[in-house]
């Protein structure tokens, strides 16, 4: 028996009122709007970074031309409410839910929203059976959309969405250390592996890009950590000073590589690098790197109790 006055070992769940009141229709409508906005409007932090990059390129250069087209594209997509990029990518949903929230119902609502957004042209038909080659036509199928649920002790549901195109996904990589070309199991080895990824990715993942890096973990958790880094704001500072230093060095060095926007040559190769670290088993040392293109489609919402959108997050 617990001593009187001692805190209970497990905090009792705080059941939120939204569990009972959220309607499927309202939730689905919110998710369609989240998809529409994510596909057609870049978040402010990314737009600011693209603008700054344009200022860094020599007038009349191919790099300046590329960034000028990119900026015009950002404006057009927003005005026309049409996809920034025709590759509307993998649909990655990160969902924080209160204790007791029905995640299965959310999953169904997300699938319905994805189908509706596809029919309206906010999403391309992007879900292909890997064995038969058949396109499901509605972006729903095994692994599509990709939902990552987490419980939290807030009373509301938070939904973050990334649309990650195949061109940039293809140039992500997992490195293992030690490696004779990059170095040992230390920050030097990590930094050199990341810079090799930048070199290999050139031109193919539409640059200037943004890297998410997961140091450690296993082959799944390391890459999951890398992708989750992309949920951070581009202009945030990593609270870990060692990782903050690594992020800054990678961006500075990548931007001295001369790869430039679209691999045309130029001053801006990366708009950002965000790194996280996980513990690893003694035998493994993975550096997992995910590359995000300039068309960095990420948005998020806090949902109101009725399923409507209470707040935009980016």
């Amino acid at each position, binding site marked *: 028996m617990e001593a009187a006055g001692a805190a209970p070992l497990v905090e009792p769940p705080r059941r939120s009122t939204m569990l009972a009141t959220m309607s499927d229709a309202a939730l689905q409508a919110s998710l369609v709007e989240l998809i529409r906005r994510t596909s057609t409007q870049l978040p402010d932090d990314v737009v600011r970074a693209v603008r700054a990059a344009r200022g860094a390129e020599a007038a*009349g250069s*191919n790099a300046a*031309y590329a960034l000028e*087209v*990119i900026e*015009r*594209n950002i404006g*057009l*997509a927003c005005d*026309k409410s*049409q*996809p*920034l*990029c*025709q*590759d*509307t990518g993998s649909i990655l949903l990160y969902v924080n839910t209160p204790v007791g929230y029905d995640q299965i119902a959310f999953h169904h609502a997300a699938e319905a929203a994805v189908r509706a957004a596809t*029919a*309206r*042209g906010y*999403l*391309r*038909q*992007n879900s*292909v059976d890997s064995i038969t*080659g*058949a*396109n499901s*036509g509605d972006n729903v199928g095994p692994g599509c959309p990709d939902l990552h649920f987490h419980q939290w002790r807030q009373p509301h549901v938070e939904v973050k969405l990334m649309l990650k*195109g*195949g*061109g940039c996904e*293809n140039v992500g990589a997992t490195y293992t250390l030690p490696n004779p070309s990059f*170095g040992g199991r230390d*920050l*030097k080895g990590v*930094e*050199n592996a990341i*810079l*090799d990824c*930048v*070199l290999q990715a*050139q*031109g*193919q993942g*539409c640059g200037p890009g943004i890297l998410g890096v997961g140091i450690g973990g296993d082959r799944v958790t390391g890459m999951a950590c890398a992708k989750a880094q992309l949920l951070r704001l581009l202009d945030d500072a990593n609270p870990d000073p060692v990782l903050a230093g690594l992020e800054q*060095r990678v961006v500075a*060095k990548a931007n*001295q*590589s*001369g*790869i*430039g926007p*679209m*691999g*045309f*040559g130029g001053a801006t190769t990366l708009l950002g690098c965000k790194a996280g670290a996980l513990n690893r088993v003694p035998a493994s040392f993975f550096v997992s790197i995910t590359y995000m*293109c*300039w*068309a960095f489609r990420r948005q998020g919402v806090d949902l109101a109790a009725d399923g409507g959108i209470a707040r935009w997050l980016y």
Partner: protein
Amino acid sequence: MAVIPLTTPLTEDIARSLTVGDTVEITGRLYTGRDAVHHRLHHGERPPVDLRGGIIYHCGPVMVQEGGRWVCKAAGPTTSTREEPYQWEVMRDHGIRGVIGKGGMGPKTLEGCQQYGCVYLHAIGGAAQVCAERITRVDGVDWMDLGSPEAIWHLWVERFPCIVTMDSRGGSLHRQVRAASEQALAALKA
């Protein structure tokens, strides 16, 4: 930068006159063709359209049907390097004069450009609205069984903007940038 206007079909002379760094604007017909189309052509299937003098666009557009007509909602380039094993063959067998894509291609394609008189045109990756704005009509579609992004869409474009990054004289901007950046990053190693 002076812009060179191009009209399809392209002649061999026109294709061979273009040089790395040229900015062009294309008016006329583009056929989309990406992974599955190249795979089929490689296995000897006859293309459903006449590609002679034509331009293949590495693109999987977003298409929706509105009032019985196809409307293009977004249509930027996809990564071209995946077609590296096949592209030279399409130049040889089907007489294409231009390839539009992004990221550039490798030595086989560059050799194909030299041998058969073709040019690689770089559109701006991710700029699907800037590209779609120049697509004034969707005139048809073939091989829809491959799924919409992989089908052959018959696009009519007006002043579609590209930069020549691989030419018929063996020039490749991609090879240049790769070599220079490899050297620069080697010097910056931690």
